Structures are given as C-alpha cells and as structure tokens.
C-alpha cells in the first residue's frame, strides 16, 4: 500500500470533531470514527501525495508509528472510505 496512490473516496465526507473526525460514506452509509487528528490530516492529505509513503512523510509522523497508520488506512480502504487512484497509463 505504501507505494500506491490513494485518496479520500468522493462519496465520503469528513466532519471534524474534537477527537478527530467522523467519516460518512453516502454510498454505503457507513459511519466511521477517525480517532486521531493526525489520522484525519493523513487521510485528507492522501490525494495530494504521490503515494501513501509520501503522505506519511509529509505528515511528520515518526516512522515508528507508520505501521499503525497503515493498518488504519487498510481498514478505511476495506469499507471504501478511501479509494485507490488508478495509475496513469
């Protein structure tokens, strides 16, 4: 996943909350709670980065924490909260 380009799914809205954010998917109507502001910033920044690794680097998170964030991203991907960006041919 680290070398792939991802972005917030176009059907998802993020609502800022004191603990992080609430993500709502208008397609499958799932509600997910992002429990850390850092995760919210990461998810928002995905679309502007070349790949997930670049987004993590840009986030300033210590590398030791990356695996936990990657796990969270995978779970977001499983419910279509984030979507993989198709590679340009």
């Amino acid at each position, binding site marked *: 996943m680290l070398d792939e380009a991802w972005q917030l799914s176009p059907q998802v*809205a993020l*609502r*800022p*909350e*004191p*603990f992080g954010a*609430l*993500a*709502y998917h*208008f397609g499958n*109507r*799932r*509600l*997910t*709670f*992002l*429990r*850390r*502001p850092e*995760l919210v910033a990461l998810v928002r920044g995905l679309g502007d980065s070349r790949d997930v690794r670049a987004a993590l680097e840009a986030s300033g998170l210590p590398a030791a*924490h990356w695996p*936990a*964030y990657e*796990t*969270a991203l995978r*779970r*977001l991907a499983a*419910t279509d909260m984030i979507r993989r960006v198709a590679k340009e041919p």
Partner: protein
Amino acid sequence: MTLLEDAGLQDRQRPNSQGDRPMGGTLVEQFELGLDAPICLTWELTYACNLACAHCLSSSGRRDPRELSTRQCEAVIDELQRMQVFYVNIGGGEPTIRPDFWHLLQYAVDHQVGVKFSTNGVRITPERARFLASTDYVDVQVSLDGATAEVNDHIRGPGSYETASRALQNLADAGFRDAKISVVVTRHNVGQLDEFKALADEHGATLRLTRLRPSGRGADVWDDLHPLPEQQRVLFDWLTAHGENVLTGDSFFHLAGFGESLPGLNLCGAGRVVCLIDPIGDVYACPFAIHDEFHAGNILHDGGFQRVWQTSQLFQDLRAPQSSGACTSCAFYDSCRGGCMAAKFFTGLPMDGPDPECVQGYGESALAADRVVPAPSQDHSLPATTRNQPVMLQLTRRPDLAAPPVSACAEDPLAGYRPLRPH
C-alpha cells in the same frame, strides 16, 4: 456502525485545543463529552396523526398551529447540511400527512442530508412506494407493534395492522429494498419475536426492535405494557442469539446489566450524540424526553439549531460527568451506565438512580418506594375519541363477586343467602 480503532496509537489525557477536554480514551468516553453536531438527530415534523397509539412518545394527534412552515423546514435542512449532520430520522406524529412532506424529503436528499422516516404506512401508496424505490439516501421505517392484527391493533388502534402491512407490501412490490419494520417491544408482543423476524424476511425488510419508554402517552400505559422482568431475559437471550441482523437503535443498553453487552454504543446519548427537534422548533435532549425538563431551546428564538446544540445550558450539563448515585456500588454500572434518563424521569425515579427496568432488580424496589410521576408538560392528543383509537379496556367481572349486590329493600328471607356449593 464501525469503529476505526487505530490500535497502538492511544495515549490518554493529551491536552488539545479544546481546552481541558481529554483526548484518547474510549470512543464512548469521547461521546459522553459531546460532539460538535449530533450523529443521530430525530426531527418530528408534525404532531398531527391519523392514529392515536396508546404509547405515543410525543402524545401526538393534533397539529400544533405553530408548526414550522415549509420555508422554516428548508432552513433547518440548510443548517443541518452546514453542520454536516449526514442523516436525520424524521417522525411525528405521522410525518407523511404534512402536505409538503415529499418536497422536504427531496430537499433534504438534495442537500446531502439522508432521511430515514417513520410512518404508520397510511400514505405509502403504490405510487409513493415507486418514488421511494427510485431515491437514494431514503430509508423507510414502518411501525408495527404486533406480529398479528390482534396484538398490534390493541395499542395502535383498529385497522393499523392492515395499513402497515399494505405499506410494506407496496414497498416490496415497488422494489424498495431493505425497509425497516419498527417494533416497540411490549409485554404482549415479546413472545412474537420470531414471527416479527419472519414477517421482515417475507417483505425483504429489516427488523428493528426498540424499547417501550414511559414518555408521552406511554406514561399512562407503561405499567401495563412494559416487559416483565422474566420477559427482559427472553428479549436479551433472543437478541444475543438472533440480534445480528436486527436493529435496536441502541435502545436496550439497560439489558447490559445481564453481564454481556449487546452490540452498539451502550450509552445514553441524550444531548451528547442525539437530540430531537420538535414540530415547532423546540430542541429536546432526546426523542423520549419531550418535557420542559429536557428542553434545550428553540431554533427560531435561540439563534438556530447549531447554537442550541453547542451552547444550551442543559446540553452542557448533560456532557459534564454524571453522578452514578445509588448505582455506584453496583458491579454492572460500567455496562449499563445507569440506564435510560427518560425512563427514570417519567417514572418519577431519581436521575442518578437505577433504571426502572434495571435487570439486577434495583428498578423494582425503586418503583415500589415513594415517587411522584411528573405531570406531562404538553399534550397534542386528540380531544375526542376517534373511530380508530385503541381501546385498551376489557369488560370483565369482579372475580370476588358471584352475584349482584343485595338491595337493602330486598324482602325475600333468603336474600343474600347462597348455599355452599358441594365439592
């Protein structure tokens, strides 16, 4: 509802920009501190209703002349969109009898506010069912409080079972997928849970079970209708065994005292993650608390919904740490958190005491003690009986009287004498 647990990232009591609000902890702990906007907002569009259900939470019947106009309702939806309230539960009264109901439904959906609405089915014609099947973001919830007409009509009124069944059939015929059948669990229908599930399966619908609250007219019938202690266990066991595809609106968290939590948040969300807007724009802490005691403000007179939600004193209080009072020493307090605030209030129990249906039995003793049931602060019930009003009285004889009383003028020397019946 999925929780995204960012495992390994939890650190507690981290200061943040919200002043002294602690970060981290569990999601429930965060919810208890309140959110910037509700997750689950109920909006009663009208107090008018074609039915007069015995247990109506909002004592509905008559339209309130101060009811929000179409323009005012649109403004509410605009504000919900700004606040990113992603969906709203619309109810009443019977919301579909507002002439602008279908317009408001479309308006909400067009403004990224999904709608789930509750109905008794009276206006779900084949044509409306086809319209509903063509929309996204609209959920329909048909109320049914008995799996048979006999049980249902006893509290919802004659003909109401047939109305609901026809609506469900129209929805299924139109290809509307996954309608909800919404059941308030009572003493009379708790034995029909399997039948309800079969009924839902038959209509391609999802079963939703919720708790009977002693709110509104429900206060008048709660003593006779709320499930008995042994039925609470039946309900809990049924939910544990079959609950996976059954919705509960998180309403049975008082059952968590049986030792095993049911899926869901298991917390009272009043004023923290849920609230209610009533037909005249009054905001209450939860759908089961339409009473002056839980009135947070009015969206017309107090600067809009967002302002009421974020600044009302009542909601600030509800988001502050609550006292566990008499429940402090109970081993199950952490699972049930003292139960339902509205259930306690409307049965005259202290807010920091046990739930009236506490499964550890503390509710029964609390109910047996001195208490004063609060008077309702409003009532929209119809002033006169209507043809489809439920009649919950049954004519019976006093069991201790074997014959009519003897008149003082009876001259018969054998008056009042009844020979002992041979065994």
